């Protein structure tokens, strides 16, 4: 069923009896060409591009819970392409371009909103670093603008520009950045993949791999064995747990990141602001809630809930820069498990097992990567060569010394 304005009016006049389910709840078949493990944003996008762009068939997405129940439905919905390094920036810019046309592509309203993102500057050294990053963005066609304090005050009059420790001295803006309705991304890709014949199999946990003579021939699941020519792992925070079953140790630690939403308020915050120095970032959802977060809790965790010190730290950071936040009440908070890699950048690569592929290490920034990650992973699966924007995302970069360390933090996952 194609969604359109005409369809909405027709359904409104006929009692909304013509809407069917957006995708089939498939049961597993015995054999596929491709089995993608993990029905998050990346797994669903991979299935969609594999079918649509690379004309592959007999594809299944296998999800242990329900699609959208993982990080794709837990994140703070920010998209941007404001990276510095060559290994990253072309990839994230490719992703932003896919976002810009996503709704037409999927025939689904994902509420892509290019409301702009602003990174605040507090010192000369930080200004130098941000100018350098802005230039890298401009070179990659992503666009960037350095804003003065006056320009920031004109757009965000409520910001405390005279904080004693972190006075606002300017900012780096990417006007094409913004937010996207995260659940709708999962649903939109699921529906579009389903329309291309992909089987979406929920409540089906992968419990092991069948590996014969160094080649993966399928997956053991809670709903029985499913055979596949190619198996594509794509489980974000669960990456180490899953790949352990194929005898792999990964350059990844799992950490919890928390997010917060206030009660609904009238329009206040037109764009996304990040106060990196104070561990706080914020946007306002279309429902009016202020959506904000800060640092990861900082220790290995699979608990999907965080602890109070970070709640306090995030709220202190918020109050320092955004004092009227103190009048709003916190409505909800939650946590998600991040696949924090050793250099803060992801991996899209083959493994030592033939026919077994890996996508993970997205840290706290994989939502914005969803379209490009799906596209690049589908490219790798279909052609056995990396997509041109994802050639640096290799497993062996740690051994060869080609780390992609945006912040220069070294092999300490909780600092990225």
């Amino acid at each position, binding site marked *: 069923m194609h969604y359109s304005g005409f369809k909405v009016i027709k359904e409104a006049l006929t009692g909304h009896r013509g809407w069917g389910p957006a995708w089939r709840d498939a049961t597993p078949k015995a054999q596929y060409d491709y089995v993608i493990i993990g029905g998050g944003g990346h797994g669903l996008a991979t299935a969609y591009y594999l079918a649509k762009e690379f004309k592959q068939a007999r594809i299944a997405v296998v999800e242990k819970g329900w699609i959208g129940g993982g990080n794709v439905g837990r994140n703070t919905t920010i998209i941007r392409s404001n990276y510095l390094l060559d290994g990253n920036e072309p990839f994230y810019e490719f992703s932003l371009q896919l976002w810009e046309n996503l709704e037409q592509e999927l025939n689904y309203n994902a509420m892509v909103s290019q409301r702009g993102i602003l990174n605040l500057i507090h010192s000369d050294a930080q200004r130098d670093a941000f100018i350098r990053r802005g230039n890298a963005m401009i070179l990659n066609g992503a666009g960037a603008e350095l804003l003065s304090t006056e320009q920031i005050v004109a757009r965000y009059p409520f910001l405390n520009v005279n904080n004693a420790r972190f006075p606002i001295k300017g900012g780096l803006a990417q006007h094409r950045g913004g937010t996207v309705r995260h659940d709708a991304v999962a649903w939109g890709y699921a529906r579009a993949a389903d329309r291309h014949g992909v089987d979406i199999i929920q409540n089906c946990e992968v419990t092991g791999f069948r590996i014969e003579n160094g080649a993966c021939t399928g997956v053991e699941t809670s709903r029985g064995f499913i055979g596949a020519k190619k198996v594509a792992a794509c489980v974000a925070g669960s990456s*180490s*747990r899953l790949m*352990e079953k194929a005898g792999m*140790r*990964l*350059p*990844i*630690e*799992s950490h919890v990141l928390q997010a917060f939403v206030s009660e609904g308020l009238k329009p206040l915050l037109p764009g996304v602001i990040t106060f990196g120095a104070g561990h706080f970032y914020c946007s306002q959802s279309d429902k009016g809630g202020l959506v904000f977060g800060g640092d990861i809790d*900082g*220790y*290995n*965790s*699979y*608990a999907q809930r965080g*602890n109070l*010190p970070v709640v306090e730290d995030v709220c202190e950071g918020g109050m320092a820069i955004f004092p009227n936040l103190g009048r709003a009440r916190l409505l909800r908070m939650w946590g998600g498990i991040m696949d924090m890699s*050793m250099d803060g950048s992801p991996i899209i690569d083959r493994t030592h097992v033939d026919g077994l592929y890996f996508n993970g290490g997205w840290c706290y920034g994989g939502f914005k990567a969803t379209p490009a990650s799906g596209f690049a992973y589908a490219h790798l699966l279909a052609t056995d060569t990396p997509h041109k924007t994802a050639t640096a995302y290799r497993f062996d970069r*740690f*051994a060869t010394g080609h780390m992609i360390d945006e912040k220069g933090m070294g*092999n*300490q*996952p*909780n600092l990225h």
Partner: protein
Amino acid sequence: MLINHPILGPRDAGEFVYKGDASLIRRPDWQADDAVAQFIDYGYLRDNPAGLHRELWFHEQGDRSWLVVTRDTTTHEITKVELARDVARAEGRSK
């Protein structure tokens, strides 16, 4: 989270800095034939278990000792705290 420091008693986890898997105590021998491979493993690969995890915490805002904390990564419950010095010595390091 409270960490029951072996010398100082229960302390707020906020006083500590987290380093990671306690296997980092076992630095490879740089003269071994496969030292490069061992150091890649040591520097970059982790078990990252869901369940009991032995990990290094540094009491930065306290007595600046390193601790080995045994904690469940699925519940955050801490079951054992040792001085890293004692753990390392028991393994034969720096006698």
